[in-house]
């Protein structure tokens, strides 16, 4: 009775009660044999006030005070029970001790019981008909990633997380359950405390220079959220989330709950993290042959098809001379406190990060204030304000980027000598257009983004009567991102324009207003809840950019320093508004069977008025089978679930009519842009089905969650290229059907659990498949042009094939499949410009294995990221091969005969003529250009990657407690990406040739001109004051 009362009252009340109990001496007893003093802490070493302590077998006990302290007279052989809501019960034998310090462990089961499913709504996990994954903020912080997106890799079944490159500030993307939009974004919605947050990555199409998203990267803006502010993060994988969040959540949603101030004595905590970083796995290049062609020295080419270097030639390790040791420091300081009515938490973070490439750095500052006020017993407000500033200095990537500059530098030349005595660029060739020296590129070209961001939300929560809860939220996310790129007049990129400077300012605004009302009612064994709500979203992005060329002074970086006649400016404004109303009804029978139905109607601004309103429903069923069997220790929990959801996705803004583009040609004016609009666009439709179960065995020592889903997307809105007979290059249409299906499993085992040692291991398994059922306009091939990065390899969709197919120009072959050889040259013949399916990026499966050990005050954890199968295009290798730097075929002075048959008219006869023409590659440079790029698609790439390894030690309360100043302290060391074991011959098979702004199935698995993820070790201290 006492216990129930204590654990169900507000914390402050409990504390007061505790004091009351102490004062009244309720806990003191005439039979006291001895007095025990002690302190109760949580796993982080934070004092826990209000913990109830009961002497087993009696009704005597006490409650911890404001510092977590307690004092109790007990019999010498007493057994104490420590109870606190949300924590596992602790049982401690006194054994004549007079001082007992207790650490309460969070009860994951209790924390898991509720899931934040929408707009600040918590739903009992038992009731959900679909699978969700929750990751704690602690785990995210401990992963020590600069972009918290990357900490989710290998932790979420059904998700693929990809950092686009190893550069500081690079964009990262998350994809849940595959590609549901051919051309649209496939990234989930990000929601913080019920408010939508902009996670866009700047799209270079808005610039005057209208660049593709491959030569420069921009942070995906959700990375601005300080990981230290995340209490927990829930991943809603399927379109079920869209019932509440609307069409934008058709790709799933990541719902973040921020940390709130805790009631109790004010706390200050400080922690830091210092990381050193090293470049890892740079593609190898040859240092045997020198500049030239056909075996003859030619100092006017950077290609190394010349003669071998003599032994007297000094060779340089240019790679070592280029990269530096990266270093990052991060400091977090949090002030928090609260009383019964008011809580606040003010969190600040500062980071200074220098990447492994000279010139690449990132500076972040984030400040977030979260507060709540209980205005009256029935009205509460919660506010959340954050200011974020970020400065990212970058270097160019891709074809003209530093990495390929470096790899294609002859070994007999020292890249460090990139300047002449006069301070101008030292040229290797007399050709003015030669690729840059990477150090010159990093030093003299300039590339920077700055972001100033404000996020704020106000929640008004009303509980007018016991069974009704109402919530109104107003939220805004506004940021200005500005940037400058400078192509130095002497650099390759800036040569033709005699220097170019381009700057932009992007002003982004995402406002949303939500209102929900939820009523709960229980009649006998029937429980029901009804939710109604509305959501209004307003989104506007304004990008203005300007460009100037022809530098007056080559080394002064400002648009004032350019020829005024070359100045160009561009404005791009996109607006999108949406209104949604939704309802959700849930009924349950005795908390045994739950049936949930939702319906939502959206009105969007992006579709023609007659199609702008659309409705989509969902249904979920959950059955707690374990409630029907007697309580036992083997199967403690079993839930079966099934769900069906539809969601409609609207069009990109401004695509109903065809838009005129301003022209930069002489006299200016307007003409139609590439895209033909479509006044008849309808929403895309997605239908998703999911079945699964959740089981716990052996007192929750083993947990298993399994889901199988199938999702089909119809009426794809995409702008395929069509015949120019339309008057456009690409035309927006509704056409095409895609399917994705997969299996997800998560298995948790706690093999060891003793007082001092706990070992738990978590397996996350994902297998995804996809199929293009129908391509737009029934075309034979649909490709995402952004992925066409190098050579003739691109992400092509063929009817009936997976969405992750590699299309490439393969060899011409006879009916037998033999490569056809040109009888004149002895070189293989390529299949013209015909792209055929030659590979698939999709892995057979992905597996994350997360181990944690806690031994007394030590904690040790590591995360393996394992993948099996899936092809990767090694574009770097293709580039290096065709330019002479590849380590392949170093025996190039030996004659070589391509395996194949002559294309002599007999190739399809019974006796084709085998090729016998020998070529000595050293003397025929054309040999190196004869391969199909498909040869550089590496098949069935597996990897085992040590994503994270972390060791931490918490100083025992005894040591820390003696100081009045420091209340808790811990130290940690974390390693990131320490090693990768893979059959991939390139650097990093997980990088992406484009930024996260690239649409559709993206460009993960296109490894070209992109820096591999570096490895790093972080050291830090956490202090609670």
């Amino acid at each position, binding site marked *: 009775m006492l216990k129930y009362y204590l654990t169900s009252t507000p914390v402050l009340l409990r504390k007061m009660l505790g004091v009351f109990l102490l004062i009244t001496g309720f806990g003191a007893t005439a039979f006291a044999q001895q007095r025990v003093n002690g302190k109760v802490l949580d796993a982080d070493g934070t004092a826990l006030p209000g913990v109830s302590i009961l002497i087993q077998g009696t009704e005597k006990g006490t409650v911890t005070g404001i510092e977590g302290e307690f004092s109790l007279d007990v019999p010498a052989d007493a057994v104490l029970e420590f109870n606190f809501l949300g924590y596992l019960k602790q049982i401690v034998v006194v054994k004549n001790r007079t001082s007992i310090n207790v650490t309460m462990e969070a009860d994951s089961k209790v924390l898991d019981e509720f899931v934040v499913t929408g707009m600040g709504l918590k739903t009992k996990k038992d009731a959900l008909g679909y699978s969700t994954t929750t990751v704690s903020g602690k785990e995210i912080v401990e992963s020590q990633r600069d972009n918290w997106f990357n900490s989710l890799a290998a932790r979420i079944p059904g998700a693929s997380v990809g950092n686009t490159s190893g550069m500081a500030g690079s964009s990262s993307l998350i994809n849940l359950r595959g590609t549901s939009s051919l051309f649209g974004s496939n990234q989930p919605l990000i929601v913080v405390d019920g408010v939508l947050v902009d996670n866009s990555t700047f799209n270079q199409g808005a610039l005057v220079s209208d660049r593709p998203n491959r030569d420069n990267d921009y942070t995906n803006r959700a990375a601005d959220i300080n990981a230290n502010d995340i209490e927990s993060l829930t991943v809603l994988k399927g379109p079920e989330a869209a019932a509440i969040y609307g069409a934008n959540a058709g790709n799933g949603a990541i719902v973040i709950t921020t940390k709130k101030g805790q009631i109790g004595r004010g706390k200050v905590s400080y922690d830091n993290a210092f990381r050193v970083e090293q470049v890892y796995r740079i593609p190898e290049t040859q240092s045997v042959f020198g500049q030239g062609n056909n075996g003859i020295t030619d100092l*006017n080419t950077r290609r190394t098809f010349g003669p071998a270097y003599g032994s007297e030639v000094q060779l340089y390790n240019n790679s070592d001379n280029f990269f530096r040791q990266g270093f990052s420091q991060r400091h977090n300081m949090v002030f928090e406190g609260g009383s019964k009515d008011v809580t606040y938490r003010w969190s600040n973070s500062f980071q200074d990060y220098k990447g492994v490439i000279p010139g690449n750095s990132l500076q972040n500052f984030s400040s977030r204030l979260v507060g709540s006020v209980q*205005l*009256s017993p029935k*009205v509460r407000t919660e506010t959340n304000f954050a200011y974020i500033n970020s400065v990212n200095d970058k270097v160019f990537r891709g074809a003209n980027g530093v990495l390929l500059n470096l790899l294609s530098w002859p070994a007999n030349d020292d890249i460090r000598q990139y300047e002449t005595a006069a301070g101008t660029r030292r040229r290797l060739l*007399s050709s*003015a257009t030669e690729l840059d020296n990477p150090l010159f590129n990093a030093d003299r070209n300039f590339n920077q983004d700055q972001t100033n961001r404000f996020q704020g939300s106000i929640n*008004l929560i009303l509980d007018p009567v016991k069974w009704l809860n109402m919530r*109104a939220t107003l939220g805004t996310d506004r940021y200005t991102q500005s940037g400058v790129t400078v192509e130095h007049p002497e650099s390759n990129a800036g040569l*033709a*324009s005699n220097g170019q400077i381009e700057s932009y300012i992007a002003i982004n605004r995402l406002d949303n*207003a939500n*209102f929900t009302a939820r009523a709960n009612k229980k009649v006998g064994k029937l429980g029901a809840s009804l939710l109604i709500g*509305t959501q*209004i979203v*307003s989104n506007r992005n304004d990008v203005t950019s300007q460009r100037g*060329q022809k530098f007056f002074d080559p080394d002064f970086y400002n648009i004032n320093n350019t020829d005024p*006649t*070359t100045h*160009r400016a561009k*404005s791009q*404004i996109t*607006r999108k*508004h949406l*209104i949604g109303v939704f309802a959700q009804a849930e009924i349950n029978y005795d908390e045994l069977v739950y049936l949930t139905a939702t319906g939502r109607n959206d*009105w*969007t*601004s992006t579709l023609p*008025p007659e199609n702008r309103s659309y409705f989509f429903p969902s249904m979920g069923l959950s059955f707690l089978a374990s409630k029907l069997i007697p309580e036992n220790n083997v199967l403690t929990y079993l839930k079966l679930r099934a769900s069906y959801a539809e969601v409609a996705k609207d069009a990109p*803004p*401004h695509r*109903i*009519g*065809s*838009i*005129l*583009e301003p022209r*930069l*040609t*002489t*006299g*200016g*004016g*307007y*003409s*139609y842009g590439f895209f033909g609009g479509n006044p*008849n666009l309808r929403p895309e439709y997605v239908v998703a089905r999911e079945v699964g179960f959740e089981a716990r065995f052996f007192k929750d020592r083993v947990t298993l969650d399994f889901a199988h889903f199938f999702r089909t997307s119809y009426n794809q809105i995409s702008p395929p*290229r*069509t*015949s*120019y*007979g*339309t*008057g*456009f*290059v690409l035309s927006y*249409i509704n056409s095409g059907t895609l399917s994705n299906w997969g299996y997800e499993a998560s298995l948790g085992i706690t093999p060891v659990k003793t007082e001092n040692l706990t070992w738990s291991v978590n397996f996350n398994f994902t297998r995804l498949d996809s199929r293009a059922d129908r391509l737009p*306009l029934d*075309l*034979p091939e649909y490709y995402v042009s952004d992925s066409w990065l190098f050579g003739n390899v691109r992400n092509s969709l063929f009817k009936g094939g997976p969405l992750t197919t590699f299309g490439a120009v393969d060899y011409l072959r006879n009916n037998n499949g033999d490569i056809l050889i040109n009888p004149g040259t002895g070189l293989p013949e390529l299949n*013209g410009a015909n792209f055929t399916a030659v590979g698939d990026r999709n892995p057979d499966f992905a597996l994350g294995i997360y181990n944690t050990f806690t031994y007394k005050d030590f904690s040790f954890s590591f995360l393996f990221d394992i993948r099996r199968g899936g092809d990767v295009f090694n574009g770097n290798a293709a580039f290096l091969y065709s330019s002479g730097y590849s380590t392949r075929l170093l025996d190039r002075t030996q004659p070589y005969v391509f395996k194949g048959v002559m294309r002599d008219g007999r190739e399809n006869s019974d006796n084709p003529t085998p090729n016998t023409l020998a070529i000595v590659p050293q003397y025929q440079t054309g040999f190196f250009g004869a391969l199909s790029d498909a040869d550089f698609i590496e098949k069935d790439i597996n990897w085992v990657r040590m994503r994270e390894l972390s060791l931490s030690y918490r100083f025992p309360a005894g040591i820390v407690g003696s100081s009045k100043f420091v209340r808790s302290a811990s130290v940690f060391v974390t390693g990131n990406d320490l090693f990768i074991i893979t059959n991939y011959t390139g650097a990093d098979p997980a990088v992406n040739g484009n930024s996260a702004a690239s649409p559709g199935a993206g460009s993960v698995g296109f490894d070209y001109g992109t820096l591999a993820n570096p490895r790093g070790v972080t050291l830090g201290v956490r202090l609670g004051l």
Partner: protein
Amino acid sequence: MQHKFSRIFFIGLLALLASSCDEFLDVNTDISKPQSASAPVLLPPMLSDMARGEQFDSRFVGQFVQYWHNVTAGTSYEAHGSPSSDANAEKWRSHYYAIGLNVDLMIADAEAKEQWNYAGVARAIRAWSWQTSTDHHGDMIFKQAWEPGRFIFDFDSQDLIYEEVKRLSNEALELLNRQSEASTTAILARGDLVYAGDAAKWTKFTYGVLARNANHISNKSTYDPRKVIEYVDKALASNSDNFLVPHAGNNTDDSNFYGPLRNNMTVYRPSTYIVNLLDSVLLPARDPRLPIMLTPSLDGKYRGINPGAGDPTNSAATTSPTKLPTLFGTVTRPTTDKGSKFIFRDNAAYPIMTYAEMQFIKAEAAIRANDKATALTAYTNGIKAHMDFVGVSAANRDKYIASAAVVKDASALTISDVMIQKYIALWGIGSAETWVDMRRYAYNKDIYKGFTLPTVLSSDNGGKLVQRARPRFNSEYVWNAESLKTIGADQPDYHTKEMWFALP
């Protein structure tokens, strides 16, 4: 207190929903880019695209007609080949897309405002575009072109397009002649960077299009040389009528396609044939246009390269006395426009049609009509006009006219004399028309004396010479492939199929 607050909130919310829902959602018009524009704003880009389309493809056509050759030996185009590529199909893009529907937008705006001159100009441009595009590509999408909601298109034969050119030209002529208060020179001048609003010059240009249309079918029984002469006489009447597309030359966007800034012509060198024509090898006098159009090596000698042979001096040092200079006039591509010459300057205007060309068309038609006196006058006018156009001094011009290189006896004037001078007068600025001529005369060495065909033809050709450019690869071959089969464009030798206009 809180009740009052919440009541205000809810009432506000409901009011917002009820009253301004539609208004709230009507934000789907792009406020940074329009969906319609007035005619004067639409015209300048069309003019730029007229030049771009021709110049882009002239890089390849220039190799067929031997105006210039690639410094690399054995490229496909030098061998009259047609690789699967968007190259040599810029006309396709220009006709359907770059100029394309903008014409209809301009007509709609002009007709609504009774700006008949704009409506006429729009039709004249489309007529010109059909004419030059079908002369390049042959069969095209005609009847179904630009049909809303259609994504697969049928091809139509060239004769239909030739008829369409006549129809559109006549409509244009009528409109250009039609008067209204809104149809003034000042209004047309706002967008007309070529003729400064002079509708009379647009009329002449339109007759020029008709002259080409009528002359290109010279091999047919329906050919009427009198009609050709009639059109020419109403067409451009002096160099001041030349259709010159201006280029600001400030940056890559507004520069001449041939200029050094755009870097499109760096791999080409003059052909031996043009050098021989100008440098008194094939004609008995040295042409004063030689130093203006071409550049000698450091040793003072003019050199060209043979079809498919590549430039033997390409890898020679820049100081080599025999190294071939670029078309810009310097040994390497100049970093500034200074030092670049003729039409290879960043700010050079590009001629879409010249008075000289018209005179040569007239001369050819007059010979065919057995009116050699008229032919001789037109022939001489053509040479003089082109010399004036390129900037030859009057003294040098007259000296050349007086030389044995120019025919003075009308009875001795042959088609070959006319075509050779036309060939020179269109060097670099009229590759498309010259290609039409060469195909009409089947690359005949008796007409183009001293002309030598490439020694190696592409293996796809089956020994035949190039006759047409394929439809654009990334438009038709990838996205409209089934229709292509109906005209045989899927065949490897489709580009050697003779044009309708050249057939008897």
